[in-house]
């Protein structure tokens, strides 16, 4: 699924690095705990999280994540947005809860990481 399609499904707003519309997302992982994220290979994976700070970006960088959904209507600050751009990570901001976002994406065919 394209990043723009994901954004549309969860009524999200694209911020951070411009979305690469050739990037195909197949899997998702939801967590607010960064060391849990760091345990897995994040190829073709979108991270769904309510953690909205620089550490979300650093963890995504180390995990080679290209796209992160920020749920629960959390607002990234300027510094986080700059970091996202610098690291070439697209953020999708959504008002929906993590549960709702996960349910919608699961229903649309995104697979769980495990």
């Amino acid at each position, binding site marked *: 699924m394209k990043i723009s399609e994901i954004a549309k499904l969860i009524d999200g707003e694209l911020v951070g690095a411009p979305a690469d519309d050739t990037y195909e997302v197949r899997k998702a992982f939801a967590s*607010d*705990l*960064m*060391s*849990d994220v*760091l*345990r897995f*290979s994040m190829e073709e994976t979108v991270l769904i999280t309510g*953690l909205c*700070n*620089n*550490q*979300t970006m*650093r*963890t995504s*960088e*180390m*995990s*080679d994540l290209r796209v992160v959904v920020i749920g629960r209507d959390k607002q990234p600050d300027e*510094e986080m947005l700059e970091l996202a751009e610098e690291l070439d990570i697209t953020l999708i901001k959504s008002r929906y809860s993590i549960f709702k976002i996960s349910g919608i994406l699961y229903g649309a065919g995104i697979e769980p990481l495990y």
Partner: protein
Amino acid sequence: MHYTFDIERGNFADAGQASSSVKRALKHLGVDPVSIKRTVVALFEAEINAIAHAYGGRIDVDIDDGKIVMVVADQGPGIPNIDLAMQEGWSTASPQVREMGYGAGMGLPNIKKNTDELKIETEVGVGTTVTMTVYLA
């Protein structure tokens, strides 16, 4: 190639900068992606631990043809029981550290999993030195 970084106690705004610099250097050197991922995940976890659980310290990274050696040395409280600390899920992270997204108790197990050699030297009340080696294919 040798790199040195200072880590500052509690500075979560800049936490991960050392690991980020090392990641860029490894990419530049043309190291394979799997080794890069293992190296930076291990270094990042150790960097965060020195910021979250200790009072900052210093990171030394040596890269040569065959291996990457990373030493993260902190001044801090030390680890009273390493066996316990190595267990998945065991954490003494403060509420502030949890707010930053850490405290799953997965950091040290992640380091173990991603490195070929891991040595933890620690003394209660003095500090902890974590030495990690990744062999390059």
